C-alpha cells in the first residue's frame, strides 16, 4: 500500500522487467521512456521467416493514470506502418486485448508479443477493407473507436 500512484509504480516495475527480458526482436527506447513513464517508444523488427522480415517498426504506448486497470493506447508510429489487415494506415491497430479484452494481468511485454504474433501469422499484406473511411473519420485515440473484432485467424 505504497503512496506512489499505482500506475507509476507498476510502470516502473514493467520497465525494469522489459529491459531485463525483452521479447525477441523488440526493444524499448529507455532514454525516452526513463524521462516520462507515461509514454513508451518501442522498436520492433519484423520476425524472420514472415512477410515482414527485414522491416523495422515503431510502436507508441501511452498510459493513463488508471493503468493497468485501463488498457494502454497503442499505435504504430513513424515512417513504416506495417501493411496488415488489422493495421490502419494511421497506425491504429484492431486487436481485442487493446480494448475490450484488456486485462490488468497483461503487460507491455505481452502486448508486444501479441502484436508480433499478429504480424507473423499474416498471409497477405493488405490494409483493412475500410481503411480510407476509418482513417478519415476516426479519433486520434484508437481507444475511442468501438471496434468490431472479427476474423481471429490473422
Amino acid at each position, binding site marked *: *500500500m505504497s503512496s506512489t500512484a499505482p500506475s507509476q509504480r507498476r510502470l516502473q516495475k514493467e520497465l525494469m522487467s522489459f529491459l531485463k527480458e525483452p521479447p525477441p526482436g523488440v526493444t524499448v527506447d529507455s532514454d525516452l521512456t526513463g524521462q516520462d513513464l507515461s509514454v513508451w517508444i518501442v522498436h520492433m523488427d519484423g520476425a524472420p521467416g514472415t512477410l515482414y522480415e527485414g522491416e523495422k517498426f515503431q510502436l507508441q504506448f501511452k498510459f493513463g493514470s488508471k493503468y493497468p*486497470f485501463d488498457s494502454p493506447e497503442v499505435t504504430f508510429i513513424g515512417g513504416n506502418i506495417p501493411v496488415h489487415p488489422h493495421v490502419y494506415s494511421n497506425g491504429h491497430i484492431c486487436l481485442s486485448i487493446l480494448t475490450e479484452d484488456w*486485462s*490488468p*494481468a*497483461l*503487460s507491455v511485454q505481452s502486448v508486444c508479443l501479441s502484436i508480433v504474433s499478429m504480424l507473423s501469422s499474416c498471409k497477405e499484406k493488405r490494409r483493412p477493407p475500410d481503411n480510407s473511411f476509418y482513417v478519415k473519420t476516426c479519433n486520434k485515440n484508437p481507444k475511442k*473507436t*468501438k471496434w468490431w473484432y472479427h476474423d481471429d485467424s490473422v
Partner: protein
Amino acid sequence: MSKKQLSAVFVKMGDKVPTTKYDPNVNQDELIMKQQRLIEKEIMDSIPLVGDKEDFSSLEGEYDGDDIYKQKVKNLAKNYKYIRRTRPDGNCFFRAFSYAYLEKLIDDREEFNRFRELAAKSKENLVALGFPQFTVEDFHDTFMEVIDQVGKHHSVLSPGAPAGEDLHKVFNDQGNSDYVVVYLRLITSGQLQRDSSFYQHFIEGARSVEDFCHQEVEPMYKESDHIHIIALSTALGVGVRVRYMDRGDSAEVIAHDFPEGSLPQVHLLYRPGHYDILYPH
C-alpha cells in the same frame, strides 16, 4: 444495475428524444462512449465501492408499491438482518465476496490461517499455469498486504481503528480494492483452466475455456456468472450462499450454495446483474 443494462436504458431513453437524428459528420462511436463514461461517472460519484452496513428496512424501501418484491424482501428478512451494497461496476461479485469473507476472517483466526497459507501459495500455482510472473506478482503482493492487514488484528491489540474500519478503508481505496478484484479474477481463471474439462460444459458456443477466461474472467468490469462463482469458491475453499431475487413467482428467495453442499461463509444477494452482501441473523 449492471453496465450492460445501463446502456440498454440509455438506448431506450434515446429513442424518445426526437433530436437524436443520425448525423454522418458526428463520430457515433465517440458519442456512445462519451455517454457510457458519463453514466459510469454518475455511478462512481453516487455509490461507494463498498457501502455501510444498512438495516434491512432500507431494502424494503426500494420496493414501495411493488408487492411481489416487497413480499420477497419480507421473507428474506427472516434470515438476514443487514445488507451492504457494492458499486455496480461489473466487479461487484468479486468485491462483495472478498469484503464479506475478509470481514469474517477478522473474528476467525483459524480460518484466517488456513486462508493465508492458501493465498500465499496461489501465486506459484498461477505462474505454473502460464500466467506472466511479473504481473501476477504485482497483484499478489497487494493481495497479501490486504490479508495481512486483517491478520494483524489477531496478534496485537491494535491501537488504531477497529479492524472493520481498516478493511472498509482499504476496500474503498480504488487502487487497493481493484488490485484485490484483479487477483481474484486471476485465481478464478486459474481454477477454470486447471479443471477445464469440467468447466467446458458450462460454456456456451464453441469458445474454449481459455478464450472464455481471457474474455470474460480476466478483464475488469466483466460480470460474473455461476461459472465464476463455482470456480472461485472451489479454488479458495470458501462456501458462498447466493440468494436470487428476481421477478419469479415464488415468494421465497431461492438460495444456491457454491460449491454445492458447502457450509456458507459468505452470503450474497443477487438481483439481475448485481451482487450485494447479506448478513444473517
